[in-house]
């Protein structure tokens, strides 16, 4: 088809035609500039998390409820962080919010810290442990995720093993205290998900940790 048209048309028309194809493809590939607008909201329990919007012009953090961040265009992104009226949210997002599925579960995250290059808890975290065990027994989580982390001292492979050891030791302890083993899953994320970003081989006590994520049925 293209060959047929090319031979028929003059050289000038040919160029126009090819230009049209290129332009058409550009539109098809999504080159039309777009605007992205995000508003952070409290969840059903009133909790507010954080989000980071990454655009060509940088990273913008939002951590307050009813605050928005907006990015425009492709090459030159204009980004604004500002607060939004609740009526505006209803007007623009009402239909999407009405379609929201019911939240069946509640999630909670507990963090315990470990001593350097070891699966032992720090004295401060050891003190928190009895209250955590009581909470686990009272709230009856459907699932418990025990996730080990390390700082960036040592190789990635070594830290994957160390974080695994931290998570399994804590699981063992929780089970010894009477929490059912079958609801617990263990993961090791090594040095890949630090709480505090550092350069490689830098000690960071806050990153030596085990996180416990519980999933409980909402009443």
């Amino acid at each position: 088809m293209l060959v047929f048209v090319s031979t028929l048309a003059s050289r000038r028309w040919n160029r126009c035609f090819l230009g049209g194809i290129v332009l058409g493809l550009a539109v098809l590939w999504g080159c039309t500039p777009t605007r992205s607008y995000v508003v952070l909201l409290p969840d059903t329990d009133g909790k507010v998390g954080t989000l980071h919007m990454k655009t060509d012009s940088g990273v913008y953090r939002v951590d307050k409820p009813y605050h928005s961040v907006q990015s425009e265009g492709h090459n030159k992104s204009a980004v604004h962080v500002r607060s939004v009226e609740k009526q505006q949210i209803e007007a623009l997002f009402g239909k999407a919010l009405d379609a929201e599925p019911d939240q069946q579960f509640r999630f909670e995250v507990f963090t315990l810290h470990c001593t350097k290059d070891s699966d032992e808890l720090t004295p401060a975290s050891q003190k928190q442990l009895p209250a955590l065990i009581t909470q686990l027994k009272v709230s009856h989580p459907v699932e418990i995720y025990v996730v080990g982390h390390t700082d960036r001292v040592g190789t990635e492979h070594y830290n994957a093993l160390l974080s695994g050891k931290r998570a399994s030791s804590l699981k063992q302890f929780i089970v010894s205290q009477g929490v059912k083993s079958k609801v617990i899953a263990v993961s090791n994320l090594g040095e890949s998900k630090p709480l505090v970003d550092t350069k490689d081989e830098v000690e960071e006590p806050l990153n030596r940790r085990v996180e416990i994520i519980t999933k409980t049925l909402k009443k």
Partner: protein
Amino acid sequence: MLQSRFAKTTASIFMIPITAFFLVHSICWADDRYVAEVTGVTGTVSLRCGFSTSALESGARLKSRDTLETGPDGSVGIIFNDHTTLSLGPDSKFTIQEFIFEPSQSKFSFIVKLLRGTAAYVSGLIAKISPESAKFITPSASIGIRGTKFVIHVEEI
């Protein structure tokens, strides 16, 4: 001799579109595991996977790389396997780019894309267990999520 060469050429000419067709479709079939369930559909909502488009119904299950489109009267609610919930408003287009929730293998990934329209998002387990593994992409930005709820709007300007 001449005939066999002719047969070969014809065969290869036919094989190209057939191979291309299966390649495109294998993108859709590559991963059979369901990653999410549709909880409620209002108005027109369609599901696109590869070249095929079908009307989406409540209770349908979704896979990685599925694309959802809502009409001017449409909206839809989705629950992912890690209990992340997501809903789309009218005139929206949304793709599940990658979903991996394998706690025993320590593998977590949640990457979705809103191409146009409105959506409401509430974090599930992936954003709690492995925060940097949860990403919401738009044509002009990438949003990293740490345990939260937000609404998002994408429009052409």
